[in-house]
């Protein structure tokens, strides 16, 4: 079977090869049980399974010490033909009290696992449903919209509170802390918008589109182009020429690409941008670990964007930084 996938070949030069090899060797040596990064749920706490780690992060921020959060490490972007859930994820789904998933087919495997482990008492938070978006929403990267996380936090606060009423106060305090840091992010977004609103950018995929729109940036790459790259189907030469022209004639102030997916298509545009000295900004599809939480991940993307637009600097990797400032 030819792998069917919206993702294409990846050349990951920046991948830490030794780590991977060590992991492979230890698995083959039989040290399998200790290898998975998936932990067991802690006793007595609310068991939360998140399909993506950025959602797991929010659950952790709200639930604090009374929740035990596991994020499915296996990510939905790998070749769906070969991608298989590990038995552990299935059993975690079985025992989870709360499941957070994006929806929109982005993590369709979660629906299967949930159907296989029926549990009427389990709370499933489907972010797409939570936001009341239609199932035909073309851009699935809902978490790049900070308001999404606010809605999720509110929902989780209620869910957790219902599960452990005695800790309601704790959850609402943590939620308030989260909201205030989210507000800080909101302020940063507002000031960015005031300063750079209307500036043109080019992208490859709609990964960070929701954020870019919040920032008031004008995305000059047509959505049809982005959808084709996202789905891994052929771009037409005219589309490529138009995109290259955006870069070579420096019509855009920054070029944003999916940092975690580097295929020949993406690479060719990155090369074009670098050749034309258009600053390049890497947007991460899922939350980079370790060291980031959702807010400072978004803040770091924001910093990278303002560095690009303000001083023409590229940031292919995100700099860790505090949200304040």
């Amino acid at each position, binding site marked *: 079977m030819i792998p069917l996938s*919206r993702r294409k070949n990846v050349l990951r030069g920046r991948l830490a090869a030794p780590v991977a090899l060590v992991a492979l060797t230890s698995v083959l040596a039989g040290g399998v049980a200790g290898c998975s990064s998936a932990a067991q749920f802690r006793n007595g706490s609310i068991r939360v399974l998140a399909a993506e780690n950025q959602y797991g992060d929010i659950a952790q921020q709200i639930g604090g010490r009374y929740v035990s959060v596991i994020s499915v490490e296996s990510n939905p972007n790998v070749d769906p033909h070969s991608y298989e*859930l590990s038995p552990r994820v299935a059993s975690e789904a079985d025992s989870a009290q709360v499941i957070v998933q994006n929806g929109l087919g982005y993590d369709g495997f979660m629906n*299967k696992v949930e159907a296989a482990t029926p549990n009427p008492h389990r709370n499933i938070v489907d972010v797409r449903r939570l936001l009341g978006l239609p199932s035909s929403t*073309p851009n699935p990267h809902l978490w790049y919209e900070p308001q999404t996380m606010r809605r999720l936090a509110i929902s989780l606060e209620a869910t957790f509170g219902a599960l452990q009423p005695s800790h309601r106060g704790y959850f609402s305090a943590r939620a308030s802390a989260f909201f205030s840091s989210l507000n800080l992010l909101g302020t940063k977004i507002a000031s960015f918008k005031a300063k750079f609103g209307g500036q043109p950018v080019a992208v490859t995929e709609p990964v960070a589109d929701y954020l870019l729109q919040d920032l008031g940036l004008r995305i000059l790459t047509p959505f049809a182009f982005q*959808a084709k790259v996202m789905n891994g189907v*052929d771009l037409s030469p005219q589309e490529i020429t138009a995109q290259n022209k955006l870069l070579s004639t420096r019509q855009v102030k920054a070029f944003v690409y999916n940092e975690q997916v580097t295929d020949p298509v993406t690479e060719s545009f990155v090369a074009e941008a670098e050749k034309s000295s258009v600053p390049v900004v890497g947007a991460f599809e899922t939350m980079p670990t370790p060291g980031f939480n959702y807010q400072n991940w978004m803040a770091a993307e924001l910093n990278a964007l303002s560095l690009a637009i303000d001083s023409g600097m590229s940031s292919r990797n995100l700099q860790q930084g505090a949200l304040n400032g």
Partner: protein
Amino acid sequence: MFSSFMVNAWIAGTFVAVLGGVVGFYVVLGGNTFAAHALPTSAFAGAGAAAIAGVDPLVGLLAFSLLGAVGIASLENRASQGVPTALITTFILGVGSLFLSITNSYGEQIFAVLFGQVLGISRGELWAIGGTSIVCVGAVGLMSRPITISVLLPASAEAAGLNQGRMKLALLAAVALATSIALPVVGALLIFTLLVSPAASARYLVSSLRGGVVASVMIAVITVWLSIGLAYLTNLPVGFFVGTFGVLGYVGARTLSKVTSR
């Protein structure tokens, strides 16, 4: 190891193993391995078409894999050596890319329904996979003698009044039906491997037709049981074990037959 999702996996795995063992035996007997690989691939275009037409993906799946079966059965002959199969497969994939580029929406959403997880099987899907297995195994059983004579002695079959093209189509339609219903439940990897490897190994171990079917089913069932068990113990993908046992079993059976025939 026997929580609800595991029980479902055991049961569904057993169904698929029996299905793969029986249907696969005739696939291998006729050397239709390539078609068994090609037909599930048609699902790609099927899902895209279903999304555009706004119908149930299963309809698109069935329609396109049956279309593939018709194309392969009518174009493939002894002299053509898999060429039509290869070209039809790539063409259907190409059609899928056309559909995908027309929809302009998130592709994964369209295809998420296609990719099964043996560890993610619900009670309802269990009925579907069980029903399909019984229907397919029954149909192939009813056709087993004509299929056998058609693939092994085409000239005699023709002289006995069997239409070669129709027999081939019947077998491929069974494969198409089996794969398009099992694909979204257990995944392409499991289906394809179980269609080919156990039957391929069984040929070396058993010398009679009926024995071949039985051996093929037994090997498939043992492979699946071992794989699910080991996957649970090691937390590695089930498909890895199924694929590995497929190759190991085949190499083992070949070696054994070579050693004993000396």
